[in-house]
């Protein structure tokens, strides 16, 4: 039962709450981006790069190292390590050029982490793997062709 008193109490609490949230006291600080469906659509690689990086210029760089087997026997598990000696790397994205959804993973790194990430990829077929590092000074990429002898999609 809602009495007048409890109603007043509740409404007061509610307004205090909403006031606090408008000040950003309750909401966590938004530093990182959210998962977006448009970044993970089935599109060709160029389109995927464009969606994620808009019209930013991406330069090839030798300072990004991709460690991946050149011939993957099993496309379902391809271990990859991306490391970089570039300063101020904010994010590292990994693309598999010929996968239906090229963007495999995007790591957003805070300055507390070194630009050093590992993961395991699925690869549908022989394809280039592209790593893009976002730094304060611009966007840099490196690529490596990986031969797949057995496909990763039940093939």
């Amino acid at each position, binding site marked *: 039962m809602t009495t007048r008193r409890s109603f007043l109490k509740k409404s007061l609490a509610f307004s205090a709450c909403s006031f606090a949230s408008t000040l950003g006291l309750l909401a966590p600080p938004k*530093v990182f981006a959210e*998962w977006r469906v448009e970044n993970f659509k089935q599109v060709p690689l160029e389109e995927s790069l464009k969606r994620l990086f808009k019209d930013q210029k991406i330069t090839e760089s030798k300072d990004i190292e991709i460690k991946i087997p050149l011939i993957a026997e099993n496309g379902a598990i391809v271990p990859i390590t991306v490391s970089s000696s570039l300063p101020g790397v904010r994010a590292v994205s990994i693309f598999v050029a010929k996968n*239906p959804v090229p963007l495999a993973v995007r*790591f957003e790194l805070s300055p*507390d*982490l070194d630009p050093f*990430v590992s993961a*395991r990829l699925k690869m549908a077929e022989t394809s280039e793997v592209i790593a893009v590092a976002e730094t304060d000074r611009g966007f840099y990429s490196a690529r490596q062709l990986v031969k797949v002898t057995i496909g990763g999609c039940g093939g």
Partner: protein
Amino acid sequence: MSSIKIRTKRFEGKTQIRTLITHPMETGRSKDPKTNQPIPAHFIRELKLSHNGKAVMNCQVGMSISKDPYFAFMLKGGEPGDQIKIEWVDNLGNKDSEEHVLK
């Protein structure tokens, strides 16, 4: 039991964090070999890493990551007793988290 395993190793002022997550990571494109029915997509979408309660990494994951995903990161610093937390959320809204204390 948690679906997340965390292993850490400290060396030269850095901490390597490795994690192995038990998850099917279905792309939504493969078929069940017995029934020939498509298997619906089921994959981890977001992965978060925090160090002593501070978010240090956020990761947006796609279908191109292998089943039972493995990730590794390198943390600058890290002292014994520091807390590492890893959380994931998948496309069906399932989530899990695991905490680990550095040795």
